[in-house]
């Protein structure tokens, strides 16, 4: 049987990750063996579907379901591609770094099994440039995996072949969006693509392509090894498995921990992050990165899983919470976020290209004491015009989540900026 913290059980912060020998000694690559020897590709996909694993990159789409859309068999277009999205760039998110640096072979194994499930011939790890240490460790681990017969031609004596490459990106948040990522991999500007067709049908160079987040893929070997019931049993809630949760901001012990899916926000804040630092009080939080709605004191009992957080009016997103304290200005906080989104907008569609700089400017004006009557209404209008379905990709609606919820929960703080013609926090 497995461990309670399967993804991080072989990770020792401050120590180098397990090399191939060490990883094998800890049971590594048994999932590749098992899948290739005892399971059909469709069988692997069915298993992952039954496990109820949902994507850990933010959107929470069921992983097995995604795989099941890929055309299979003789007739399928080839080559097919399998991609690990290691472009972790959502502000406030630092969980995939731990997995990449702590146990690169685990990701590679998950990718081999996933590639086998969709019968992919080529796989890429799409890695942000800033993760230098991860690049070094992944390159070494991939070389070891080739030498060990887990990659390349006739993997472990089977007739399955897979090539695995690392793609080093060069910045821009848009690369994290699935279709933007595909354009970037093809050597183009990372603007998003029209859907349908979805990448699973027509992705990289027009071929069927699966893109999965790093944490998602690290779950795969454990599901194959230990089965669906075990995986469901790891969780405290209806969404299966464990989750890497993080907390940053003015807490005593910022960090990232693997815990049962469904751990409550309050437990994360108090037990794991050690509560607020002396002299600071909790004022609110973003549960999973910059593009999620604020939650407040009233939500400390909410379980951090896809369903519960969305019932509370937000999204679990990446599961890495950002804490707003009482000595940090909520308007400045949101202003920082909107400036980020305005900068990272790819400029393709008008509401986002024009609207985001406008919101950022209004927020800056509020901060500088030159806010005007009607500014809050103008901000509220943007949350409508940049909302879901009105822009080409989810960047703009994502950017409106913290803004809309801040206007709701911290309205008085916004109004004070206009009334007093200054930022009360400065």
């Amino acid at each position, binding site marked *: 049987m497995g461990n309670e913290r399967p993804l991080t059980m072989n990770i020792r912060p401050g120590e180098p990750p397990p090399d191939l020998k060490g990883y094998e000694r800890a049971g590594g690559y048994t999932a590749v063996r098992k899948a290739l020897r005892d399971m059909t590709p469709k069988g692997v996909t069915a298993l992952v579907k039954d496990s109820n694993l949902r994507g850990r990159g933010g959107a929470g789409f069921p992983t097995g379901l995604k795989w099941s859309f890929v055309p299979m068999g003789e007739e399928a277009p080839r080559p097919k591609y399998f991609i690990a999205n290691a472009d972790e760039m959502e502000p*406030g*998110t630092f969980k995939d770094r731990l997995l990449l640096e702590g146990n690169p072979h685990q990701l590679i194994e998950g990718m081999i099994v996933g590639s086998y499930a969709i019968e992919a011939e080529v796989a890429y790890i799409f890695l942000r440039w800033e993760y230098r240490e991860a690049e070094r460790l992944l390159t070494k681990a991939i070389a070891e995996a080739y030498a060990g017969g887990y990659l390349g031609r006739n993997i472990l004596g089977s007739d399955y072949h897979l090539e695995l490459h690392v793609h080093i990106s*060069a*910045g821009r948040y848009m690369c994290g969006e699935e279709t933007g990522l595909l354009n970037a*991999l093809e*050597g183009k500007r990372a603007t998003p693509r029209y859907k349908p067709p979805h990448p699973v049908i027509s992705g990289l160079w027009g071929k069927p392509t699966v893109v999965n987040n790093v944490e998602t893929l690290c779950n795969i070997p454990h599901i194959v090894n230990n089965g669906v019931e075990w995986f469901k049993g790891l969780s405290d809630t209806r969404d299966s498995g464990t989750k890497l949760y*993080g907390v*940053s901001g003015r807490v005593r012990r910022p960090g990232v921990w693997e815990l049962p899916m469904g751990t409550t926000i309050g437990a994360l804040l108090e037990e794991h992050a050690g509560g607020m630092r002396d002299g600071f009080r909790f004022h609110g939080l973003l549960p999973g990165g910059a593009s999620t709605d604020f939650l407040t004191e009233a939500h400390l009992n909410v379980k951090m899983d896809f369903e519960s957080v969305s019932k509370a009016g937000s999204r679990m997103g990446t599961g890495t919470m950002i804490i707003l304290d009482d000595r940090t200005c909520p308007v400045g*906080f949101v202003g*920082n976020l909107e400036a980020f989104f305005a900068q990272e907008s790819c400029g393709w569609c008008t509401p986002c290209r024009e609207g985001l700089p406008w919101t950022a400017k209004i927020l800056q004006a509020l901060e500088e004491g030159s806010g005007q009557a009607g500014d809050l209404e103008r901000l509220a209008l943007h949350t409508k015009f940049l909302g879901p379905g009105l822009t080409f990709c989810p960047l703009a609606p994502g950017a409106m989540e913290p803004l809309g919820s801040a206007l709701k929960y911290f309205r008085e703080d916004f109004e004070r900026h206009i009334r007093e013609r200054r930022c009360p926090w400065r």
Partner: protein
Amino acid sequence: MLPKEIEQTIEAATRRYPQRRGACIEALQIVQRHHSWVSDDDLKELARLLQMTTDELDGVATFYNLIFRKPVGTHVILLCNSISCWIMGYERLREQVTARLGIAFGETSADGRFTLLPNVCLGACDHAPAMMVDEDLYGDVSPATLDPILHQYGCAGTPGKGDGERTTADHEHQAR
């Protein structure tokens, strides 16, 4: 002309993609590693190697913020300006860097040693505020630890530790 060995590294990169242009972002990085930035001449050369037009390649090069189409200093500082670092003291840090080096974002110091750039979240928010100098990540940067870090890269105006040698204390501030 690009040196032979750069051309060979680029050739190897193209083999990882079904189309030559797939390697163009990597190729731009390879040139940048050698020349620290991508000049118009380099861009033309690369475009020819990758069978793209120069404008097409420039369209890609200018999209990505970590490809430099203008000369940069010997050391590039990437200062995280995203939310967790903003909460934890990014603005003060920025003022201090600016005061020490006499440059704002996007500028290079007069001695050509440093270029200062903002960067989105470095994925080190548990060690905010964070920054990178070249390929090195620094976390939990405070007013007290910033100067020794800059000193390490040859910033003359900042006090080092004692005689200015790299100390183990400097390394403790590396995030991981």
